[in-house]
């Protein structure tokens, strides 16, 4: 045995030492694995601390260690730390192996004896594996300075502006005709009640005019190839039927368009738009899109009113969808959320009982530029309500629908209550499970509402019905709810019910996630790299998430995440290049018989076949290191650095303690 191996067992305070007898593990390794090359085995309070690292560095220098095994936490946490320690001591960082006895032992097991035994096996596995490690150099690839931001809501806008202002190019892709997202639909924002449009519009305009931002609205990303620093994205620019070169956004076309269409997107079905339209007056960009599905010309072959009246001749019925290819270094996903479909809870009567509204409908209803000009009225469009019930947690905190808390509904409902109160003087009943106001100025807002005389009823609403039992109830919506504070069932007759519907992942979140190589949690929100320490990065290098895509959150949090994601992207751009794990497959030409078994296996097309030499070869730039071809090669001609057969089989030996057995058979 030529290698000199050092084994370091971490206490992690009591995190490991509380369950695993770390001293014993170290002692055991020093004795039993001595003949496998272990020259030193230590245990230490915190291996990851600078002192702990120095311990390793010292041994490397003084004992001339050629391999290092650290038994501590998950490699996903501290692999880099200990690799650096080796590097500092002049040992190739890849000659270090970090095995997890915290996540995989002390945190998940309770029996100390068994846990200690398992830790020994894991250490022994690490030792056997590390013997087969080879010195490696990380691959360095240049980073393309441009960034793709998907989604033009407030989170995306923030991210785009941060990067663009820093002087780097941004492509912003938005599915709808205008950026602005849900925030553009709101009238007021809690808790300050400043007007949503007033604070959002300037930012939208900045995006529209920014020299460093290429704005692609009415467009979708259809394909993404490549890897961090070098992504190639394909974007479908849907046909606008408007020549943006010529269009001035004067608006004559949509004035003249004879076709009225119910606007399910921006007006949440409450208002109408034309067949050629911009969703709202402050839309960015200002040029409209022509909705072919509803345009009289496309349906009947006649009309062309817009074309006739357009002063600049910008209307172009022949426009087709275009596909653009762009190169970017990194990607920020801020694709936002969908509203929970309240029809899934028929007991609340939406769609059946006219005056039951969704939260988004109410946002439009209360919006000065909305269909009623900000007048809060019943469906008939005229009658102001004398009493309004606001149902919290619709579809949220309910195992039949979404178990999670949508986090904004409480504040939103309070805002609604305030607006109703302010504009109609109606009696307002807020039916809640718990009131959650955990942010700056939120609790104060709640107090304010209490003082305004809004009724708060603690209980989950059972049903909303029109089945009156008393003359008072006649013609009203009756909200059946148990008031858990007085322990009584209550029937509250009201004129209007607002369902504070929860936030849901976009209906196509999963597909979009796959497109960008990131995965969704069970709830459907995108998974961050670390829930606390890395909330905007994802498991896929170079792809970040911002805003509600990562989980329900309010505007300030979305903005913060947008900025955070931008900062992460900028950080990488500044580095100019990324170091990539040198985990790659290589084919031994002499062994390769050119059977072409591996050729179809690579999703990144990294394997090419040389007809002339009749051998296959791996392109290291494209190889992502999954090792599928390594496992598949019938001749064993392909080897995978970092995860070679030798390494894994050796680790198996160690885990099963066969190494010890063998040693016992042959005397020293």
């Amino acid at each position, binding site marked *: 045995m030529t290698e000199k191996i050092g084994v370091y067992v971490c206490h992690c305070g009591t995190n490991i030492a509380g369950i695993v007898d770390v001293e014993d593990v170290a002692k055991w390794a020093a004795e039993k694995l001595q003949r496998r090359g272990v020259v030193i085995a230590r245990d230490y309070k915190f291996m990851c601390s600078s002192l702990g690292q120095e311990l390793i560095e010292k041994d490397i220098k003084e004992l001339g260690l050629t391999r290092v095994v650290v038994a501590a936490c*998950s*490699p*996903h946490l501290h692999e880099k730390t200990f690799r650096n320690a080796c590097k500092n001591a002049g040992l190739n960082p890849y000659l270090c192996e970090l095995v*997890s006895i*915290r*996540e*995989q*032992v002390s*945190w*998940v*097991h*309770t*029996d100390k004896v*068994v*846990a200690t035994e*398992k830790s020994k*096996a*894991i250490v022994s*596995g690490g030792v056997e594996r590390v013997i087969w490690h080879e010195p490696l150099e990380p691959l360095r690839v240049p980073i393309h300075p441009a960034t793709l931001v998907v989604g033009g809501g407030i989170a995306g806008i923030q991210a785009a502006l941060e990067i663009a202002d820093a002087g780097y190019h941004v492509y912003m892709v938005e599915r709808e005709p205008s950026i602005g997202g849900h925030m553009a639909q709101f009238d007021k924002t809690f808790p300050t009640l400043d007007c949503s449009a007033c604070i959002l519009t300037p930012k939208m305009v900045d995006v529209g005019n920014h020299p460093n931002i290429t704005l692609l609205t009415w467009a979708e990303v259809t394909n993404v190839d490549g890897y961090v620093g070098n992504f190639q994205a394909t974007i479908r620019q849907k046909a606008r039927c408007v020549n943006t070169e010529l269009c001035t956004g004067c608006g004559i076309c949509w004035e003249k368009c004879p076709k009225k269409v119910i606007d399910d997107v921006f007006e949440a079905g409450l208002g109408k738009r034309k067949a050629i339209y911009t969703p709202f007056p402050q839309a960015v960009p200002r040029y409209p899109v022509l909705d072919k599905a509803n345009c009289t010309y496309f349906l009947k072959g006649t009309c062309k009113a817009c074309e006739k009246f357009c002063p600049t001749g910008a209307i172009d019925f022949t426009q087709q969808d275009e596909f653009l290819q762009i190169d970017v270094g990194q990607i920020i996903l801020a694709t936002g959320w969908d509203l929970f479909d309240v029809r899934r809870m028929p007991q609340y009567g939406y769609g059946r009982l006219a005056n039951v509204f969704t939260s988004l409908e109410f946002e439009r209803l209360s919006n000065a530029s909305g269909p009623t000009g900000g007048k809060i009225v019943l469906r008939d469009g005229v009658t102001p309500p004398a009493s309004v019930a606001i149902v919290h947690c619709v579809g949220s905190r309910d195992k039949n629908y979404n178990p999670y808390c949508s986090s904004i509904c409480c504040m939103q409902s309070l805002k609604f209550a305030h607006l109703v109160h302010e504009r109609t003087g109606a009696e307002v009943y807020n039916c809640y499970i718990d009131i959650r106001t955990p942010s700056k100025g939120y609790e104060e807002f709640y107090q304010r509402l209490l003082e305004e005389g809004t009724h708060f009823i603690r209980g989950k609403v059972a049903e909303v019905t029109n089945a009156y039992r008393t003359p008072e109830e006649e013609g009203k919506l009756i909200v059946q709810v148990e008031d858990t504070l007085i322990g009584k069932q209550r029937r509250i007759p009201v004129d209007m019910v607002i369902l504070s519907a929860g936030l849901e992942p976009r209906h196509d979140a999963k597909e979009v996630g*796959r497109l960008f*190589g990131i*995965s*969704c*949690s*069970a709830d459907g929100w995108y*998974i961050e790299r670390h829930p606390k320490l890395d909330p905007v990065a994802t*498991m*896929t290098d170079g792809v970040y998430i911002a805003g509600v895509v990562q989980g329900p959150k309010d505007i300030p949090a979305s903005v913060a995440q947008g900025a955070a994601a931008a900062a992460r992207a900028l950080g990488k751009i500044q580095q100019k290049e990324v170091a990539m794990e040198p*985990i790659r497959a290589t084919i031994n030409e002499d062994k390769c018989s050119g059977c072409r078994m591996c050729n179809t*296996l690579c*999703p*990144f097309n990294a394997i090419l076949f040389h007809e002339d030499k009749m051998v296959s070869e791996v392109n290291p730039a494209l190889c*992502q*290191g*999954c*090792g*599928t071809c*390594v*496992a*598949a090669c019938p001749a064993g001609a392909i080897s*995978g650095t*970092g*995860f070679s*057969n030798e390494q*894994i*089989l050796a*680790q*198996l*030996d160690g*885990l*099963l*303690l*066969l190494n010890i*057995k063998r040693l016992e*058979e042959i005397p020293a």
Partner: protein
Amino acid sequence: MSEQTDINKPFEPVIIGFTCNWCSYRAADMAGTARMKYSPNIRLIRLMCSGRLDPTFVLKAFAGGADGVMITGCHPGDCHYVEQNYKALRRFIILKKTLQQFGIEAGRIKLLWASAAEGAFFTEEVNKFVEQVRALGPLQWPTSGGGLEKMFAVPEHMLVKEVTV
């Protein structure tokens, strides 16, 4: 290993688990971070992808004394490497078939898809599998040391001849 020294003690199987770096290993990490408890009989090996799973590893594990082997990866469609977990699936199916001919029960090998978010699920499944293997009893493949020699007792008359030189 699997030897039952004390018959009153329940048999403690040794199980090798192969995890993929992106989903199932992170599920295991999550189980840890959330302090979920599962039975200590399983020892994990990290691969970059379930597609790296070479049947040799599984055979080696059994030959080396493991009583059960669990192969885990990302859910179909969620593979970090697009679709490599399907290759694992294909290998698993034929491997299982082959192992049965070797008398290794289908219940000793399991393929599990677990996403990075499914720490709890991972925990449950590990526990289930450990119990399943426990119920099947020790495998103790002779090549794992001990037992093999016993198979080849050379009879007396042969040994006698040996020393006639």
